[in-house]
């Protein structure tokens, strides 16, 4: 597929006080592809996402966006670059309608007056470009939407601003079967529209259903980044739980793991 990554992380370190959460993490996000970010609880997925979105600042390492090295210090910086995150809790206001939620904090104005017709039109166009046909009215309160529809609104909110990278944090975690299928279809469509999509998920079926690449984090290290077609279900599970699978993944910590006849390359290991 596309040769150059849209977003590339290299050697990212992040510590909270004495605890180092991310060790030398690298991640590449390609336009038009879904990159699944997998890992067990506490592997550092959320921390990595928060580093990309500017909620946390990185200790060291480089972020390259569209060929240029960038520094992201706040969520505003990330949005300005075109990086949007859809959090697990969606961050929607139940008491506002779909259009109001999609433009929250970035309302279109004419003078000091809100430009409702323009906003409604843009919201409608965006939803249409995502082939969303399931809402009764754009002026429906978000409170009256189903879980899948809310997820759709949150995703539409993220792509409204011509963003190029969309990061989705467990978008299907709370959904039923039919709605999960709907949202996954939407995720696929985002990538087909040329966006770089990062999908965080625990669900292997979802990962294999939509992703082009899989990046597995293990205890704060990037165990492997592979094409989805090159690995099997169980290999990915091994990467998540053990950090490696066969010749994929992190180097072993003990030479015995290689069967004894392999040179130990672990620094600080017995010679």
């Amino acid at each position, binding site marked *: 597929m596309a040769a150059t990554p849209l977003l590339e992380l290299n050697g990212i370190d992040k510590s909270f006080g004495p605890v180092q959460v991310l060790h030398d993490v690298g991640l590449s996000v390609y336009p038009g592809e879904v990159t699944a970010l997998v890992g067990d609880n506490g592997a550092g997925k959320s921390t990595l996402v928060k580093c990309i979105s500017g909620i946390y600042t990185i200790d060291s390492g480089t972020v390259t966006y569209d060929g240029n090295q960038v520094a992201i210090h706040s969520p505003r910086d990330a949005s300005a670059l075109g990086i949007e995150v859809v959090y697990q809790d*969606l961050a929607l*206001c139940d008491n506002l309608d779909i259009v109001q939620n999609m433009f*929250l904090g970035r309302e279109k104005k004419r003078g000091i007056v809100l430009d409702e*017709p323009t906003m409604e*039109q843009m919201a409608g166009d965006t*939803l249409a470009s995502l082939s969303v046909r399931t809402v009764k009215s754009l002026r429906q309160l978000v409170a009256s939407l189903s879980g899948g529809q809310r997820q759709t609104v949150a995703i539409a909110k993220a792509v409204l601003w011509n963003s190029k990278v969309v990061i989705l944090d467990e978008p299907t975690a709370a959904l039923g079967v039919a709605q999960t299928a709907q949202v996954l279809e939407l995720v696929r469509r985002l990538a087909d529209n040329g966006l770089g999509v990062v999908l965080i998920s625990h669900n292997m079926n979802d990962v294999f259903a939509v992703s082009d690449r899989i990046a597995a984090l293990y205890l704060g290290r990037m165990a492997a980044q592979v094409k989805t077609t090159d690995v099997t279900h169980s290999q990915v599970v091994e990467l998540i739980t053990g950090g490696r699978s066969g010749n994929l993944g992190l180097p072993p910590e003990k030479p015995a793991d290689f069967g004894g006849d392999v040179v130990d390359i672990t620094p600080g290991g017995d010679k």
Partner: protein
Amino acid sequence: MSTTTTTTAGGVKVVKPTVGSYLNDYWGRVRGGDLGSLPAILGLVVLSLIFGVARDTFFSSLNFANLFNQGAQVVFIAMGLIFVLLLGEIDLSAGFASGVCGAVVAILLTNHGWDWYTAIPVALITGLVIGFVLGFLVAKIGIPSFVVTLAAFLGFQGLLLVLLGGGTNISTRDEFFNSLNNDNLSVTWSWILAIVAVLGYAAVQFNQVRSRAKRGLVTDPLGIVLLRIGGLAVLVLVATALLTQERAINPAINSLKGVPIVVPIIAFFLVLWTFVLGRTSYGRHVYAVGGNTEAARRAGIPVDRIRISVFVIASFMAAIGGIMAVSRASSVDPNTGGSNILLYSVGAAVIGGTSLFGGKGKVINAVIGGAVIAVIDNGMGLLGFSAGQKYIFTGVILLIAASVDALARRRAAATGNR
């Protein structure tokens, strides 16, 4: 579905509403727990009928005009409280804040001989400062608003006593100032303002429909728009006709007719704050912070600044309420803004349909709820009930309103329509 016509709004297929489907949708929302001001309006009608039947003076134009003057202070304070309630906060000090601002204006007018046009701005600025301090303590220091404003409630009660030198009564003699909440517009001006109000409302409605139709967006059905305009026109014109009649007991001595001056002032602030809440990004952000603070924060909304600003607005409106109360009595005493004023104001907002849980409410709620309170107070007074009985009845009404709010919320949660 009573309609099958579909149209495209920016590309998404939506059902084009007809008058029937619009009313159906409205009824659906009501059943789903989104009641708005409906219970208050029904209550207002029922109470008015009961009082009207029991005492025919209730419907006299003299009494009708009195309702506005009596209810003005509560309505102004309630308008400001709506902003605070929208964030799920509370301002218990609004009553005595209005008393303090009223005392400031009276002292400047009477003791220092200032003119109304310098004294009133100073009182309003006092309100702004009070609100800023309260909001700062809540938003930046992080003290619950209940505690901050409870402390301020006591503090302002004391400040009022200190300002008035331990409990003296200061009367105001400035003619313009005293006319604000006592006198009436001339009959001509009454009609001019009534007609301007109706035409202005109609223009806004039609303009909205036109600008949406031009973009190919779904518009409210024409029948509904006309119904709204017609409804307002009937209400405004009938009220004006009533108020422009001679209502003095002895017209030869002192003619009394025209719309009370306080009515256009209430209307001005109603329009102003409705505009701010409904049509500006500031208002949108107030609703957002009230609905989901975390979402608002992530959307880049300055949550702390919004939180401070609502207290500023509340205290500013309290200052106006205080000015109106002093004008009405032509004097200020240690109980101005005290006793039941604050509870009536919170009651007005809640009875009108503003939720105590935050995120839901409109400025018109203050006016409708204030009308209910004024009608109860006035009607029960006419029927000869004692003050104690009035308090009990108002308390019961407030409890009913709060129960309606809580039940509607539960029902809304059950139907997924909060």
